[in-house]
């Protein structure tokens, strides 16, 4: 009896160990030169946000189709905390044997600009920018006395410091707030947490303006509780073409939230290229993938790699670094 119980407990322990990822540790077999033999074992994508968010969704969906493309197992590991910096540091300082990658997003540039990390994309060998969100929207309660972003800016000038604008330090929302301030707005910038918490705070009259993606606010548009003043994306997304771009109102505010995959510096370039080509193939050619990202987030396939990608990374970096002082003075 004792032995049985003991054996049972041991089995559980081992299963748990294997399932929680200990099993991926064995990397004694040195990475083969070139990409012919790659991948020989499970590839790990480290996601800095918890399971269930948009970044996690995007990388999991991509990985699902990449597995078939590469004939390999891809494990998504969620290492959260520090606004993403725990994971980005881990991968940056980890093994560059071609089996660990960082599945991040535009926050890589924002982390650097706000001083959470002292490095950006340049500390990695980027693989691809593989997806793009449908844009972040400026949202207010339906009964709020403004209808456009310009009216919001004017309203805040007439009521200095009274308009509570939810923005997270080191987030794109803070960039939006800074840009609108440049356009003359006088907000009380407050922190209200995650995107769904911001919507609740908006509904509960605790704040006045929130930045959200379409997914979390769509139903409140239908119930008539919230309204959208404008979309801050660089171009009108197919799925939500009804909402004007903020930049078209003559306000200098346009950015995209882009999801990217980064390899630790020094990863074999043949492996990076092979992975990048496989990603391009899935995003551009796989109809099931396109359908899935459309159903969940209204996204359309988007991928940039090679030299264009390096330029896009640098442009993103420059855009946020220009405001590094504003971001860091908020600390």
């Amino acid at each position, binding site marked *: *009896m*004792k032995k049985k*119980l*003991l054996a049972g*407990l041991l089995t*559980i*322990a081992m299963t*748990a*160990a294997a*399932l*929680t*990822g*200990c099993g991926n540790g064995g990397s004694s077999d040195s990475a083969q030169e070139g990409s012919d033999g790659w991948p020989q074992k499970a590839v790990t994508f480290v996601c800095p946000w*918890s*399971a*269930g*968010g948009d970044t*996690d*969704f995007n990388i999991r969906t991509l990985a*699902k189709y990449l597995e078939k493309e590469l004939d390999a197992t891809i494990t998504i*590991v*969620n*290492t*959260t*905390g*520090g*606004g993403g*910096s*725990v994971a980005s*540091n*881990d991968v940056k300082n980890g093994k560059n044997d071609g089996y660990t990658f960082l599945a991040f997003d535009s926050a890589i540039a924002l982390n650097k600009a706000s001083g*959470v990390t002292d490095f950006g994309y340049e500390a990695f060998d980027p693989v691809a920018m593989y997806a793009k969100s449908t844009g972040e929207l400026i949202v207010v309660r339906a009964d709020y006395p403004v209808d456009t972003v310009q009216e919001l800016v004017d309203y805040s000038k007439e009521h200095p*410091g009274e308009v*509570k604008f939810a923005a997270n*330090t*080191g987030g794109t929302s803070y960039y939006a707030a800074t840009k609108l301030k440049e356009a003359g707005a006088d907000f*009380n*910038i*407050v*922190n209200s947490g*995650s995107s*769904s*918490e911001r*919507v*609740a*705070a908006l*509904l*509960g009259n*605790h*704040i006045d303006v929130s930045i959200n993606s379409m*997914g*979390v606010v*769509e*139903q*409140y548009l*239908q*119930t008539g*509780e919230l309204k959208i003043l404008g979309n801050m994306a660089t171009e009108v997304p197919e799925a939500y073409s009804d909402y004007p771009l903020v930049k078209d109102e003559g306000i200098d505010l346009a950015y995209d939230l882009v999801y990217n995959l980064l390899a630790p510096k020094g990863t074999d370039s043949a492996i990076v290229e092979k992975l990048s080509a496989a990603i391009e193939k899935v995003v551009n050619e796989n109809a099931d993938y396109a359908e899935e990202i459309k159903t*969940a987030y209204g996204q359309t396939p988007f991928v940039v790699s090679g030299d264009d990608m390096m330029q896009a990374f640098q442009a993103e970096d420059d855009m946020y670094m220009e405001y590094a002082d504003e971001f860091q003075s908020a*600390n």
Partner: protein
Amino acid sequence: MTSMILEGFSSILLNPTCLLWMTLGTVVGIIFGSIPGLTATMAMAMFIPVTYALSAEEGIALLLALYIGGTSGGLISAILLNIPGTPASIATCMDGRPMAEKGQAGKALGVGIVFSFIGTIVGLAALVLISPTLSSIAIKFGPHEYFAITVFSLTLIITLSSENLVKGLITGLLGLMFATVGLAPIDSTARYTFGNVSLNSGFNILIVLVGIYAVSEIIGTAESVHSGNRKDLSVVTDFKVKGFGFTMKEFVSQIWGAIRASAIGIALGILPGIGNGTSNMLAYTVAKNQSKHPEKFGTGCIDGIVASETANNATIPGTIIPLLTLGIPGDSTAALLLGALVMKGITPGPLIFQQNGKVVYAIYAAIGVSALLMLLVEFFGLKWFVKILKVPTHILMPLVFALCIVGAFGTNNRVFDCGALIFFGFIGYLLKKGDYPLSPLILGFVLGEIMELNFRRAISYSNGNYLEFFTHPISCVFLILAFFSIVMNLRSIYKKKKQAA
């Protein structure tokens, strides 16, 4: 409407595959919940890839079975090993362990299992009947209100440390201090990280909990082996348990307590972030304060187990309310449920009943079925669970230690957490040596970050005006309650001292 209800219910009840998955989920959940270091959250994260292959209803049902089984499973190690498997069962230890030491382990488990079931069902009733009302209340809670409610909850430390108030306050403060390590809320300034990036995310609650309860217990046992005064529980335990081990009369006497604990569990469940870790301790202290025989709490009376286990399970359907109606996950476990829903193209929100009514009713059915499965599996497992006490400590403790390390690694896939676990093990060991109560540390740690975050938010919302804590009605009420809680508790301590003198 009716057809949606029927479709939703039948997608669970008339679907053998789904029931099979749920049975598996319940068993795995209970195992994970009962093993210190492994949690319901981990079990769910493991099964997330499985849900891709299932329909939305089946996937959510499987996750709910894991969640409910896992939360209830925590009572097994709490009672038998004095190690809470999750923060949700901390208060279960307080009377569960003394009962086990009196040879009533089977009875303690039986009580815990039955009232876990009752808590889930009462919570489910609230979810089905009044979730729109409850979610409109939840929206009214802004940062001022959250701050006030955490201040009120912190006054529980007094009750949790009635033996020695000063020692309780010390461990409570330690908890608050450990909560400040890492990137600060709002502005992400690094605090007490000493340049170590691994400390940026602070300490995970699970690491702190398992460290100070489980690892310290292991160190303590190792020591007791050498000093020769080890306790052998197996001699006195009631291995032959009949039914659930308690009488009908005892059951009836607990009904009012169970209703009160359910209400507390649901109320904290709808407030995202405060939830499970707090509700069991709040229910326990309320039960103790209102009891006719408060001196029996902590010596092994079933009232304490009833309060803790009813409340923590009632919190689960409570947590589902803001999740479904507002899309706000109360904890990492609820976040996984949210993720699974979004993955299937189901967005929580005010229209979820119209747009995805079938899934909502499937969720109701799945919670009910999971509760029943949990009751059945644990009922038949009862006589096996108590046999854990027969395993010699020199075999059991190393196993528990190995599982703790595995669990620590599994929480965030970092070796750093394994080191932190051992660090907290030594802290817990030293505190136990000095007879310091451990639960205030956990309470301080759980509430510390929520309190600080909401205090800072509140101040920025009101442009630096502290008076707004009193002009917001809900916030004002909780601050007054906190004040009275302190005064009343101090008065009763003073009285006791006078009597003793």
